[in-house]
């Protein structure tokens, strides 16, 4: 609780005028309402009932409330089937907190205590990518939201739904004191309006119910994004008005937008007619059906797939997977279909340059481009996550996963025997090339195999050796370990990889992994992550959350003791400026003292080992940690690694 109450006098004054829901305060509502003086209320707010004792004494203090508005809020939230609430406690939503744990029995949702609002939202981010639906997050509408905002931006950019309730002391007349004023805002969601899909500030319980259900519907309709709903302190704590028509609206079944049939048929025609079609995926597969659809489409066309890995879109060892030879594959294409491709431009253009960027297309002249993305259905202006504009020949504004079945059928309808034979020949060549690529990855992994600090390839393969026969889920971005898991492991289920931050906001990794592990827990999956050291230090308290809530996850530290991406960036600047190239580490390294992540983990009740710098010690440590994880607890192994 960041806001202990200091002003009991104000509390007393409030209670004297608070709405009464008890039978003891019997005053005919209509009469009382009629007698209520015109006080400045938010339009539509339930009128405050002046407390009047049975003897008519208006100064009697009201001490209890039987059915606070927050109970009804819990009824509404339970209808949305949230499994968990991730929150750091805050007094601006204290009534809702209490209603959730007592009236709601701390079930559906169950309160998960977080040590930072950024962790709360990022946990929701990771959870949703595994479970396919949002969890609930509560934050102060001011200081909590400020903490949470980067994580919200990450989820927004990653097109992931997170359902956020913002506590606020909306009615200034009902604020208790200094802290309440400081933790109040006219328009709490203004701060994040640029990077949530929708927000509302309901001022009655009836409106809250509608907005709550509407928010869920909006958040989970592609393109999915976070939503925010303000829950006023007075709306939570005042009794539900007598006679109010409080009903929970039904949540509609959501059918994601599917591509126009004529456009889909045209896309199919282009793909079937192409000699070298290429499929580029990014955030296509939300579910097992999406992954299966991608496999069927690729196999029907015998077309190579380049997976940019925003989700687990295509099996890494599928013969048509040409992700590790993306440039050559794209440059040879005559038709390219970008499916939920976040950045189509960078897929078909290259950028380089020391001081000024130079760009040039990668594709050959005349290559036709098709896009299928729900991003065409919704855009905001301020933040530039929409990426550079890429003209395409056919833009289908629709959810790619939902469009896959009709696209596959359209492709099949246009197949001829001649095309099938051509496809078979093409597929055989791609399969052969895929094997060459796979061998090239293995060859590349041999570099520095026995090095100390441990190579990221060795780290990845030592981990793979221990989990490959489990039902595993790898929930961290592996960009910073040279993508070795994606290059070498056998990914084939949709929950085995969940992409990255979305907004490249560091601090996402640890809490998102724990959130994903929370989702995986009931499925009995072994959740593993390779955790960047700098990322963990943004909000390491999530380790405590994992321990406290018994969230099983194996965390393998990629401890290169630096904010290494920035270190390289400063090195580039030092080289360009020619003022000395030996001091790039200033401001970019995490040494002196070196952080002991095993002890950090242990201090929060997490099994911790390391630091390990000899690769021979790694396998036994991982095995020990997995044994701990299999008991239902988190474990961390600190590994000193090569930079990348």
């Amino acid at each position, binding site marked *: 609780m960041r806001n202990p109450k200091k002003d009991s006098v104000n509390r007393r004054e409030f209670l004297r005028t608070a709405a009464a829901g008890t039978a003891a305060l019997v005053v005919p509502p209509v009469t009382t309402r009629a007698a209520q003086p015109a006080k400045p209320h938010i339009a539509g707010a339930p009128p405050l009932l002046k407390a009047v004792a049975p003897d008519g004494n208006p100064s009697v203090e009201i001490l209890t409330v039987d059915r606070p508005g927050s109970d009804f809020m819990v009824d509404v939230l339970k209808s949305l089937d949230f499994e968990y609430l991730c929150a750091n406690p805050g007094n601006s939503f204290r009534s809702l907190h209490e209603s959730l744990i007592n009236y709601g029995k701390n079930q559906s949702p169950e309160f998960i205590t977080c040590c930072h609002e950024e962790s709360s939202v990022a946990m929701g981010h990771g959870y949703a990518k595994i479970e396919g639906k949002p969890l609930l997050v509560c934050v102060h509408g001011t200081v909590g939201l400020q903490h949470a905002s980067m994580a919200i931006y990450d989820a927004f950019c990653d097109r992931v739904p997170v359902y956020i309730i913002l506590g606020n002391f909306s009615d200034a007349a009902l604020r208790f004191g200094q802290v309440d004023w400081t933790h109040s805002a006219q328009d709490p969601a203004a701060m994040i309006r640029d990077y949530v899909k929708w927000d509302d500030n309901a001022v009655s319980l009836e409106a809250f119910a509608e907005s709550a259900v509407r928010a869920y519907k909006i958040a989970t309709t592609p393109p999915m994004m976070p939503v925010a709903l303000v829950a006023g302190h007075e709306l939570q704590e005042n009794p539900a008005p007598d006679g109010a028509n409080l009903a929970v609206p039904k949540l509609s079944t959501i059918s994601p937008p599917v591509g126009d049939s004529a456009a889909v048929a045209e896309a199919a025609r282009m793909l079937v007619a192409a000699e070298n079609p290429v499929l580029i995926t990014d955030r296509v597969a939300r579910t097992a059906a999406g992954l299966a659809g991608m496999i069927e489409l690729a196999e029907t066309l015998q077309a190579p797939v380049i997976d940019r890995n925003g989700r687990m879109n295509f099996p890494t060892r599928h013969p048509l997977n040409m992700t590790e030879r993306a440039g050559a594959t794209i440059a040879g294409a005559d038709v390219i279909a970008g499916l939920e491709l976040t950045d189509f431009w960078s897929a078909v253009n290259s950028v380089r340059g020391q001081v000024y960027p130079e760009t040039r297309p990668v594709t050959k002249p005349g290559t036709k481009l098709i896009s299928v993305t729900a991003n065409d259905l919704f855009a905001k202006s301020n933040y530039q996550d929409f990426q550079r504009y890429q003209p395409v020949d056919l833009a289908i504004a629709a959810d790619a996963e939902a469009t896959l079945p009709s696209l596959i059928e359209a492709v099949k309808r246009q197949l001829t025997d001649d095309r099938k034979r051509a496809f078979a020949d093409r597929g*055989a060549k791609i399969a052969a090339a895929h*094997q060459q690529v796979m061998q090239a990855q293995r060859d590349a*992994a*041999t570099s520095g195999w026995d*090095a100390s600090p441990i190579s990221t390839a060795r780290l990845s393969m030592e981990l793979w050796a221990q989990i490959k026969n489990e039902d595993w889920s790898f929930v961290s971005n592996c960009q910073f370990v040279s993508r070795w898991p994606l290059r070498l492991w056998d990914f084939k289920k949709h929950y085995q990889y969940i992409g990255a931050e979305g907004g490249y906001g560091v601090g996402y990794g640890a809490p998102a992994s724990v959130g994903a592990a929370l989702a995986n827990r009931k499925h009995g999956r072994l959740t593993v992550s390779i955790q960047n050291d700098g*990322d963990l230090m943004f909000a390491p308290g999530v380790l405590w959350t994992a321990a406290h809530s018994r969230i099983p996850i194996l965390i393998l530290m990629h401890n290169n003791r630096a904010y290494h991406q920035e270190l390289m960036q400063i090195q580039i600047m030092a*080289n360009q400026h020619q003022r000395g190239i030996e001091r790039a580490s200033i401001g970019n390294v995490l040494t002196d003292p070196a952080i002991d992540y095993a002890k950090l983990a242990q201090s929060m009740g997490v099994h911790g080992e390391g630091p390990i710098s000899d690769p021979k010690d790694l396998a036994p440590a991982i095995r020990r940690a997995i044994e701990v994880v299999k008991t239902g607890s988190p474990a961390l192994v600190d590994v000193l690694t090569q*930079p990348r």
Partner: protein
Amino acid sequence: MRQLKLLALAFAVVLGCHCVEAQAPAKTSGDIDNGKHLFASAGCATCHGAKAEGTNLAPAIAPPPVDLPGLIAYARKPTGKMPPVPIGTADDQQIGDIYAFLKSIAPASSSAVESLKGDPENGKKLFAAYGCYECHGRQGAGAAIAPRVGPPALSLAGVVRYVRAPTGQMPPYTAKVVSDQDLADIYAYLKSFPAPQPASTIPLLNQQRAPRPAESSFFFACSELVPQYSGSVRRRA
């Protein structure tokens, strides 16, 4: 006219080492005209430029930064993202012709750099101090963002030429901040590393090995020098 189905000499990883031997004895002479034709028709020029002067996709390779056996070995098993060139796709003589063409464009000048003696101990210190390790790893083993450089495939002169004016993401190390002698020391340090062991000898790299490929040759003709994950370069880790 012999045709190359693929020869994308995209030396984005021009500092990378080669760890395989050439498949056939390399000739020291080649057909310049045929090499010129192949350089254009096979797509090499697409990435390296018509005169191998380098583009935003691939570095300059004229004069060639390696000897002919080195070029053949690199083409067979590149260390970066460049597609390999199987012997069934381009034989050694064809690569030799291209090599001759590259030499004809810009003959290698005799360089005083080659006569420098390097101090590997000082090179080890400089490799760390000058930030080489940041991308290439502490033992020069490379990473996704930069090739293996220990041991180097290039001549010292080739290394010096590249680091002075790199064409990939590598920042320029001008003579103002790194002397030729410093580079000779770093080069000596990198030379001290053995070539990596074959993947086939490492059990962890042979888990659930994929089925053998069908008999075929790689048919895409172009460069691999595309920044697949361009958005990643601004992040911290």
